[in-house]
C-alpha cells in the first residue's frame, strides 16, 4: 500500500470532504496561499478558491465564534487553530457556546464544526507552543475529541469529524506531520468511539493516545525482549471513549498503564485509569499506572524538555516492575 505523511493525509481528508460537500469550508490564519505554518493545507485554495479557504486575521475568539455561528446556519466549517496552546483564547466560544448550543436549545440547533489543532512537546517551542491540552475540552460535555496516532487515523478520523453534526476538536501531534504510514487510496472513514487494538498481548495493557501510541508500541517491543507480552490500545477518540475495549483488555491482562501527553495531574490518563480501576478492579493484579507530561510548564532547553515527556524506556521499566509484582509509583 502507498505510504503518505500525516500532513498529506490531513490535506487529502479536507480536500475530499470539500469536494463531496459544498457546505464544507476551511478558515484560519494563513490557511490559504501559505497553507499554514506546517504546510498542511497547501494547494487547497488553488482548488477551492478564497471563498472556501479563508485566511483570517489573528483573532482566534473571533473566527472560532464565527465558525460556531456558521455551523448553526447551514454551513460546515473546519476551523484551523494554529497551535493547541491557543485554545485558552477560544474557550468561551468553544466551551460556553459551541458545546452547549445543541443542549440548551433542546436539540433544535446543531453546531457541525471541526476545530483542527495540535498538541505535543519536544519541538523546542517552549511553554506556549508545546502543550497538549485535550483534557481541557474532553472535560466539557457537548464536544467530541479525536486524537489520531498516525496518518491513517488522521485522515479517517478527520473525515468522520467533518461529517459529524457536533463540534469536534481534533488534535494532531505537530511532531508527526512528516511521519508516514500506509493510507489506502480508496475512501474510508474511522468511526468515533472505537478503539484500535494495535498489538495483542497477555501480561499488561498499554493504553496510549496520539503520539504516545508510538511510545507504547516501542515499550511493547522492549518488554517483548524481557519475555513480557503487552497489549497496546489506541482509543482514537477520547470523547466518545471506547471504554469496553479498554476495560476488557485490562481484565484479560490484569495490569494496565495509561500514557497520554497531557499533564499527568487531573488529566486524560487519570480518567482512563480511573475507569479501569472502577470496572476491572477485581481482575487487576497491580495498581493502574499513569504516564503524562510532567507537571511543569514545558521548558525550552532540550536538556530539560526531554525530561518532561513519557518515553518508551520509562513506560517499559514501570511495566516490567508491575509484571514482576514490584510496587511502583508512576513517574
Amino acid at each position, binding site marked *: 500500500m502507498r505510504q503518505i505523511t500525516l500532513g498529506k493525509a490531513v490535506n487529502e481528508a479536507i480536500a475530499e470532504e470539500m469536494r463531496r460537500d459544498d*457546505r464544507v*469550508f476551511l478558515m484560519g490564519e494563513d490557511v490559504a496561499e501559505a497553507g499554514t505554518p506546517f504546510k498542511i493545507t497547501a494547494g487547497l485554495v488553488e482548488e477551492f478558491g478564497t*471563498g*472556501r479557504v479563508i485566511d*483570517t*486575521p489573528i*483573532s482566534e*475568539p*473571533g*473566527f*472560532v*465564534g*464565527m*465558525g*460556531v*455561528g*456558521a*455551523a*448553526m*446556519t*447551514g*454551513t460546515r*466549517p473546519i476551523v484551523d487553530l494554529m497551535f493547541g496552546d491557543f485554545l485558552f483564547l477560544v474557550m*468561551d*466560544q468553544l466551551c*460556553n*457556546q459551541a458545546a452547549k*448550543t*445543541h*443542549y*440548551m*436549545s*433542546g*436539540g*433544535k*440547533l*446543531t453546531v*457541525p464544526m471541526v476545530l483542527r489543532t495540535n498538541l505535543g512537546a519536544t519541538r523546542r517551542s517552549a511553554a506556549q507552543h508545546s502543550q497538549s491540552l485535550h483534557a481541557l475540552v474532553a472535560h466539557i*460535555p*457537548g464536544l*467530541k475529541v479525536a486524537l489520531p496516532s498516525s496518518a491513517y487515523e488522521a485522515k479517517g478520523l478527520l473525515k468522520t469529524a467533518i461529517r*459529524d*453534526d*457536533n463540534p469536534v476538536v481534533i488534535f494532531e501531534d505537530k511532531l508527526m506531520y512528516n511521519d508516514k504510514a500506509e493510507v489506502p487510496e480508496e475512501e474510508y472513514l474511522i468511526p468515533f*468511539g472505537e478503539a484500535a487494538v494495535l498489538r495483542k498481548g497477555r501480561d499488561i495493557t498499554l493504553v496510549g493516545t496520539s503520539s504516545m501510541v508510538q511510545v507504547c508500541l516501542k515499550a511493547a517491543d522492549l518488554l517483548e525482549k524481557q519475555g513480557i507480552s503487552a497489549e497496546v490500545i489506541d482509543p482514537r477518540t477520547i470523547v*466518545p471513549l471506547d471504554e469496553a475495549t479498554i476495560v476488557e483488555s485490562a481484565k484479560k491482562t490484569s495490569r494496565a498503564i495509561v500514557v497520554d501527553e497531557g499533564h499527568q495531574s487531573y488529566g486524560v490518563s487519570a480518567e482512563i485509569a480511573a475507569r479501569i480501576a472502577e470496572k476491572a478492579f477485581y481482575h487487576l493484579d497491580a495498581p493502574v499506572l499513569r504516564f503524562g507530561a510532567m507537571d511543569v510548564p514545558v521548558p525550552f532547553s532540550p536538556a530539560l524538555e526531554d525530561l518532561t515527556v513519557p518515553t518508551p524506556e520509562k513506560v517499559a521499566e514501570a511495566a516490567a516492575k508491575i509484571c514482576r509484582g514490584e510496587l511502583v509509583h508512576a513517574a
Partner: protein
Amino acid sequence: MAEAKHNSDDYLRMYRQMVRIRAFEDQANQLYLSAKMPGLTHMYSGQEAVAVGICEALTPQDHITSTHRGHGHCVAKGADFKAMFCELLGKEEGYCRGKGGSMHIADQSNGNLGANAIVGGSMGIATGAALSHKMLGDGQVTVCFFGDGATAQGLWYEVMNMAALWGLPVIYACENNGYSEYTKTEEIAAGSMTARAEAFGIEAHSIDGQDVLAVNKLSAELVARCRKGEGPFFIELKTYRYHGHHVGDINRDYYRSKDEEAEWKTTRDPITGFGKWLQSEGIVSADDLVAINDAVKQDAEAAVQYALDAAYPDGSEVDMHVYAGTRHALSA
C-alpha cells in the same frame, strides 16, 4: 415620530408586538415575585421599540442573536407566548424543552439563534451566521443584538473587522440603555459608540430607540442594503430599561434615581408614544388601543396558566441533546 411607509395593518402589528412584549414581561415579573419561576430574569420593558422596529424589517428566515435581556427579541421575531412561558418555567413544552430557560431561549423556527448569558457571547455567532448566508447566497440578513456593556468585549472588535473585510450581511444593533448592570455607560465606555464601528469603515447610525417608526425605517433600509451586499452596518439605539438589571434588583437608588426612571416612563414610553401617533393619524381610536391591550393581556394570562399547568420534562431527558445523533449521551 419619523415616518415609514406602511399600511395600517403593519402599524397595528408593530403596536401589538410592543404591547405583547410589555405584557409578557409584566407576567414574567409577577411569576418571579410570586416565587413561581425558578432563577432570575432580565426585563426588556422600556426597550420594545428596538426589538419590534428591527424585527419587523426582517423575514422569519433572517437570523438574530439575542442577549440575557432577550424576551423582547424572541417575541418580536415571532415567538409564541405558551412555548416561551413554558421555557421560563422549565417545562417540557418550552422552546428548548426547559433546558435553556430565560437566558438561553432560542426559537429556531423563527430564526432566533438564541439568547446568550455571556455578555457579548453571540457576536461571533451572528457574524458567522452572516458568513454562512453570504456563502450560501440566500440573501438572508443577521442582526446581532447586544447592550452598551457588551461593547467593552474584545470579541466585537475582532468580528467587526472580519465582517467589514468580507462585506458580511450583518447589522450590529447596540441597545444603549444607559447602564450595564449597576454602572452608568459613561463610566465604562470611552469615546463614542459610532466611532467604534466607523474605525473599521462600517457605516454607523445613532438613533432614538424609543421611536418604533424611526427604528423600523432605518432598519428596513439597512436590511435592504445588506441584501444587496452593502453590509455590515452598526446602529446605536438609545433606550431605557424600566426595571432593575434583573427582577431581583429592586432597591437601585444608589445607581439610578427614581426621577430619571419616571422621566423616561412618562415622557418617552415607546408604546404610549406610538399609540398617540396612531390616534393622531386617525388609524385607530383610543378604544381600539384599549381593546388590543386587553386582548394581549388575556393571551398572556392564559399562556401563563398553560405553562404553570404544563408538565416538567421527564428525568430521562437530562442526558438527551448533549450530542446530535446520540439519543442518550450517558447510556450507550
